């Protein structure tokens, strides 16, 4: 999905407030969210269950610093269901290599269901890979290899919709989440809700709260990593060039983070090359993912291929590749 595809949804509906005033309002909301205590938050990274809710579903949001709460896109369903709006049915899929042999994948489909309604579905997984089992020794604290292996993983299914009144859209989504780890498993339901506001021509604001639901009880109960996010997306096209600027603040597990990104596309209707650069703060000084992300893509007619790369310090790097097709 290219920025040029998403842009028309907001075009021509701008009204009174000045762009600067609206931007200031949006940033204020974002800062308010960032400073607020996240309800039901866990205590630090890792205290909330699941990895699948911590990683980017596709290369485009990853390359834009995960500042996706106000971006209209099929992947937006995973950030803000209100923003999951596209001009035509769109399907997307992605694969990501994670550290230590783990991997993740995702697929999303979003389609308009009328002049005001848009519906979408997203499926994701994380495969932990395998480990060689070490059984505890009753004496020394050195595990004994048993020759067996253990594995685990997560699966998430999300269904949501967005309905729009004028410049405002409201979205809700329901998620089913399952976790398996070394023989323990559980599933839990959760909900997301969000707002999108087309504040001015080319300017879109979004706010969402995510992962409201019970606790994952695969063994010890753990809360989902509830997240509040708010941000803005500014888009401008001029001739063959398209520029999109995104920014977002988020709070999760008592950590506040900011993200932003720049997307520049150039080309014709049938062929376009896109470059993306993202920045994402590390909420904790000990986080080792690089704050800088780079990515790019090529759109050929209705098909887009996107890539993203992020260094992960001592955990090497992650690479994500995705495809999307607009019907």
């Amino acid at each position, binding site marked *: 999905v290219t920025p040029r595809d998403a842009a028309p949804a907001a075009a021509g509906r701008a009204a009174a407030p000045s762009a600067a005033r609206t931007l200031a309002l949006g940033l204020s909301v974002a800062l308010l969210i960032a400073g607020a205590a996240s309800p039901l938050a866990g205590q630090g990274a*890792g205290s909330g269950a699941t990895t699948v809710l911590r990683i980017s579903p596709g290369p485009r949001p990853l390359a834009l610093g995960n500042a996706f709460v106000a971006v209209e896109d099929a992947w937006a369903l995973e950030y803000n269901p209100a923003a999951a709006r596209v001009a035509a049915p769109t399907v997307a899929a992605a694969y990501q290599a994670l550290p230590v042999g783990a991997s993740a994948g995702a697929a999303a489909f979003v389609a308009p269901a009328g002049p005001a309604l848009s519906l979408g579905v997203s499926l994701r997984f994380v495969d*932990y890979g395998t480990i060689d089992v*070490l059984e505890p020794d009753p004496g020394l*604290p*050195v595990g004994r290899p048993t020759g067996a292996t253990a594995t685990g993983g997560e699966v998430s299914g999300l269904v949501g919709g967005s309905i729009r009144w004028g410049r405002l859209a409201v979205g809700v989504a329901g998620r089913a989440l399952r976790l398996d780890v*070394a*023989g323990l498993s559980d599933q839990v339901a959760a909900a997301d809700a969000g707002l999108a506001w087309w504040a001015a021509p080319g300017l879109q604001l979004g706010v969402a709260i995510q992962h409201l639901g019970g606790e*994952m009880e695969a063994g010890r109960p753990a809360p989902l990593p509830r997240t509040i996010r708010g941000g803005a997306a500014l888009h401008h096209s001029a001739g063959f060039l398209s520029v999109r600027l995104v920014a977002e603040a988020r709070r999760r597990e008592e950590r506040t983070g900011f993200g932003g990104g720049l997307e520049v596309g150039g080309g014709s209707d049938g062929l376009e090359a896109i470059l993306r650069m993202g920045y994402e703060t590390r909420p904790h000084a000990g986080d*080792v993912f690089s704050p800088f992300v780079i990515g790019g893509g090529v759109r050929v007619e209705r098909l887009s291929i996107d890539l993203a790369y992020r260094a992960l310090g*001592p955990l090497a790097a992650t690479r994500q590749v995705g495809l999307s097709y607009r019907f």
Partner: protein
Amino acid sequence: VWLAAAAALALLAGPAPAQELQRADPLLRFLLTHRQLLSGDAVAGPARPLGLRPDGPGEAVPPPGWVLGAPLDLSLFTPHVRTLVRLGPGGEAALRRHGARIGTRAGDVVTARVPVDAFPDLLLEPGIRAMEAAASLRLLADPAMLSALAAGRTGEAPAMGFAGGGAGTDASTEPPAVPIRSPAPIALNDSAAADAGFDALRRRGGERWEGLAGQGVIVGVYDSGLDLTHADFRGPGGGTRVLYAWDQTVAGSGPGGLGGHLFDYGAECTAGAIDSGSCPMVDRVGHGTHVAGTAAGNGAATGRGRPAYRFPGGAPAADLIVVKGGDAAFSGDRLVDGVAYIFARAAALGRPAVVNISLSTQEGPHDGTTLVERALNALSGPGRIIVSGAGNAGDHRNTLPPVRNGPFHAHGQAGGLPHAVRVPPYQAQPGEMNDAALLELWYDGADSVTVTVRTPRGELVSAATGDTILALTPAGAVAIVNAFDGPSPLNGDHAAHIAIADFDTAPPPDSGRWEIQVSPIRAPAGGGYHLWLVGSTFDAYLEGGTTNRFLVGVPASADRILAVGAHVTRHDWTGVDGEVEVFPVQERLGDIAYFSSPGPRRDGVQKPDLSAPGKVLVSARSKDATLWDAFPGLVEEDSVHVALLGTSVSSPQVAAAVAILLQVEPRLTPEEARDLLRASAATDAFVLAPVPGPVWGAGKLAAAAAVHRLRPAGLVHGAEPVTLSANPVRGDALVIGYAARPRSVAVYTLAAERVRTFGDGELGPVTAVWPLDTDAGGAVANGAYVLVVELPDQRIVRKLLVARP
């Protein structure tokens, strides 16, 4: 002390010695010369002149109390005499022929109960090399110390904190107050754990201790019993951590034959019996419970709304085997039986064991040659290690206010200046043989000397080598038994026993200066000697030629036993009323405790081996103990822990360190453990050169450093640079082992968010323990994580699955 003093006096009042006595120690000689007093109905009558109050024949339980001034338990001697016997060829058969019942076999020494009437013939048997009556030992953290402080007896010391009374206050009858209050904060964790290096080795995750916490090792405690209901000795499931408990003091079903030994007395309990509440063992003194808690309590007990786990022991995940040897009086033969029993039970379980002995006596040659020590040496070996407190006879004079705790030792050359026993003013007790002091003089077996006692009124009483004398003077009775039957069968040296007492028609000993002169008769070996005041009922001390040396007692002076001194790591704790209690007699924090017995042994062997925190330690409180009734200020705020001091409480920390070393290397020998602990001991400005030295030994216990010295490349064998205790992690903690101390250890999510970073203080010498928490203090969720260990020369990245049920 009572028994020895009675022996010395009665030897002189009784029949002349016979040739057979040359193989018996002085206590046995007393029994043999007075054996007609110790059988049948004659017990109560003949005992009276000696001031003894027998509780009756058989295996009576000694009444609560303390060695000094406590009634003598004649059950030790009727109808059998409890002894240790060093055997030659045919010795065991000879014992059997004469009706002796053999308990422990420890090398060439056995514990044996010998019929009194069998002694004359038995001692003529060629297979009997030496016999030693069961010596009496005392606790090394006893209320006598507290009482002394409370009574303000220590020279210039004003009224002391625990009693609220000044000099002469009877702390046993006047419940003490704690007048000194301080707003000083108190650390949550007992300061000793960090000082001794245990905190770097283990970490608690929930109710479980992970890392090096003594898992798989047995900590044996020979002491005054254990409060089996105390939560510090219960595991995460609520079951007892005590695998076996043997109460030697009650009638019941003893362990029986075990490991080639025979333990046919007392009552043994299994863990099942303990959990069912049917085990009779109680700790009426509280000493054993405190000691066991210091060694292996897990700190789980609490009360009065205070958090748990503030006072864990050094090896909180070890299992325990406990032997109760008495309430106040302990005997050497049963000590040997108890240690043999613990090692035998551990061997049957296939587990290594360390035994703590917080008991001691100053009686003996101070060279490690007593039969108790010989037996304990023989019981020690790979995976079987004994630790003991050095003793509380030190006199370091390093406190404010000043405290006198001796001197109890003097050294000299025959013909040199005299020494003296200073008897302070005291209140004499009604009756006989209850106001006394006993001294021992040891000198080379080639020398002959004359020992002369000059009373405060000027009377002279003398005995040459080979002589004995009893003089009933107006100043009190004086008895000198000067190697009257030749050199000691233990070491070939001469021993002289000197007693002053209220014996027979003599009055209680005068207060004042009792001068002791040692004069040479012939001294081919040089005439050097050592004099010990081994006990008194009136706080006597020595003057002239005194030293603060050679005071490591039995059994800590044994070759293979690790002897432990004590240093100071805290002065205060929160009392049961929530107020901060302050121990009134204070050394500088980090300095040697004023009472810690210094070495070396009389033969020059270095003792103690090292020091550990011993003043003041907070540990488990027995609910059955009455000691705290007199010293309520010692009870900690949670009411289930209590403060105590002494080498009794430093010794179990070294025992815990040995347990951890045994966890790493189950076949470790006593010598290897000693070398490791000595080589790794910490030194600072207080630990004066030379090191090792007579006061500190090699320095301060550093458990983590000892582990690192044992396994400088970590816990793993082979090329694996990083090990995990389990994966998936199903317990409450993960132990990360490494071959070299890492620069950093951290855990991340798969999204590279940091979950947990380990601070320097959390990186032990060979392991770090992750209690599955986050940097923010929360618990991590089950799932997948990435562990990154930055070793000096490489980075190790491991995938972890956390799957706690």
